[in-house]
């Protein structure tokens, strides 16, 4: 276990860090110790805008996933009464997780395209005259796909937290005269916080590191950090890609480190 992790996790990361200081020639790269890659990366205005864009994607996706995920988990945990139904509905939510992400992305094409279902429906209803161009291959499509793919990562931990919540606490709150909202905001939300945190960690890291969804759903029009890296890789600019990767890794680790201060994962399982 440890050996596998060391070999396929630690060594690769080290390799990236090392290579990020190497110099690149047209088609290959060679050992060196230069800061050129970082210098270029950190002074380029593109980097900043790409990071802002990625953070925007992350923020919006996170918010959508949180709202949807919390609502769904809340419904499953507190409004469905029999355990078999609960488990059945829960599985219904998790099954798509076990199917291919790429296929699920492709599935949006007939929905959002120029002659897609969404446009046709809106036109038939007389709401719009011309097909909306921004439905597919846009930032909207990217975020939609993210939410579609990753809400599950929010539902599962929150649901887990809610199921472990002691029901008598809610009863006590109700007996003490709390309204529905007060129970929700003063009892349920604080007690499901660990679940929310774990879900957030998943969603944030998945979105920050993503490049396929962005490339695919934006039709190549939007950039994100992951895409920049994958572009550099396809241009065989490994040192530059490594430098970007190191910066990305640091960003993600800082964000996660902050989140982890609020939750002890091991206790929550």
């Amino acid at each position, binding site marked *: *276990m*440890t050996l*596998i*992790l*060391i*070999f*396929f*996790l*630690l*060594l*690769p*990361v080290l*390799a*990236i860090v090392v*290579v990020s200081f190497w110099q690149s020639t047209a088609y290959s790269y060679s050992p060196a110790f230069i800061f050129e890659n970082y210098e270029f990366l950190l002074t380029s205005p593109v980097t900043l805008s790409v990071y802002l864009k990625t953070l925007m994607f992350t923020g919006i996706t996170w918010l959508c996933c949180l709202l949807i995920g919390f*609502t*769904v988990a809340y*419904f499953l945990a507190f*409004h469905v009464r029999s355990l078999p139904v609960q488990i059945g509905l829960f599985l*219904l*939510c998790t*099954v*798509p997780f*076990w*199917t*291919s*992400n*790429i*296929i*699920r992305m*492709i*599935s949006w094409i*007939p*929905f959002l*395209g120029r*002659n*897609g*279902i969404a446009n*046709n429906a809106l036109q038939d209803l007389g709401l719009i005259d011309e097909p909306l161009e921004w439905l597919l291959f846009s930032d909207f499509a990217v975020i939609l796909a993210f939410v*579609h793919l990753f*809400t599950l990562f929010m539902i599962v931990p929150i649901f887990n937290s809610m199921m472990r919540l002691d029901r008598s606490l809610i009863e006590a709150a109700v007996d003490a005269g709390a309204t*529905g909202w007060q129970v929700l905001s003063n009892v349920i939300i604080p007690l499901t916080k660990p679940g929310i945190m774990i879900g957030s960690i*998943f969603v944030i*890291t998945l979105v920050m*590191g*993503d490049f*396929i969804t962005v490339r695919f759903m934006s039709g190549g029009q939007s950039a994100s950090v992951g895409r920049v*890296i*994958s572009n550099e*890789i396809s241009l065989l600019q*490994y040192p530059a*890609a*490594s430098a970007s*990767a190191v910066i*990305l*890794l640091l960003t*993600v680790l800082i964000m*996660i480190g902050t989140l982890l201060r609020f939750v002890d994962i*091991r206790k929550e*399982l």
Partner: protein
Amino acid sequence: MNSKRPFSFYVLTAFFSVFVLFLYGPTITIAILSFQGPRGGLTFPMNGVSLHWFGELFKQQAVGDIWGSFRRSFMLGLLVMVTTTIVSLMGGLAFRKHFRGSAIIFYLAITSLIIPSILISLGVGILFNILDWDVHWASSGFGSQLTWTLPFGLLIMFAVFNRFDSAYEEAARDLGASSWQTLRYVVLPIIGPSLIGVALFGFTLSYDEFARTLLTAGTYNTLPLEIYGMTTSVTTPVLFALGTFTTVFSFIVIALFAVIYKIISNKRASS
């Protein structure tokens, strides 16, 4: 709790239904579209109903090698599944006792789970390049997928063992069972169903894995890579047919695991 459902119940039920529709709608759409007639395009309206595009799947493709990649994905999935199950079980058992460095390994696993997948891909690719080894789906691809499936399996095992009542083991030991017997006849039957879950995770996560395999698969593509390649070059519903095919395959795998799970649980209930 009172027996009358509050108003919020209906609102939430509606919300949930919409969510499920959102989750499955697109998949169902492409499933329908894959039965498009031979002259149909990538979107509605349907131009007749046929199995034409499924037939195309079995013919020689202009680009790519669907069946070869499917076979490779399947093999790789099995390999990853077996490894993940065994290693997570051992890891889970080991972590029940505190040993030196356990915290480090735990955080290593967490890091492995949250590290952006393209980094693993890039890192393993570069590492193999430096070492002058060839990347191949069964070596580097296999390893990079394990960095994703192992932590998952390990976390599930943690969750399982956190709820595990060690009184059963003590009872077995008091009755004179050796530690191997305790494991074989007491622990394994109890956690068996969860192990099935771990195996399912291992297989499906590997079968669908894309980003981590991208730079580590070498010359021969796995199925997700193949599909990805097709999205840029194929503009016929054959893409949807392939999508439907893999989705159905995933469902079959899930159903298969569910059946095994059921059998094991029943056996346990009856014995």
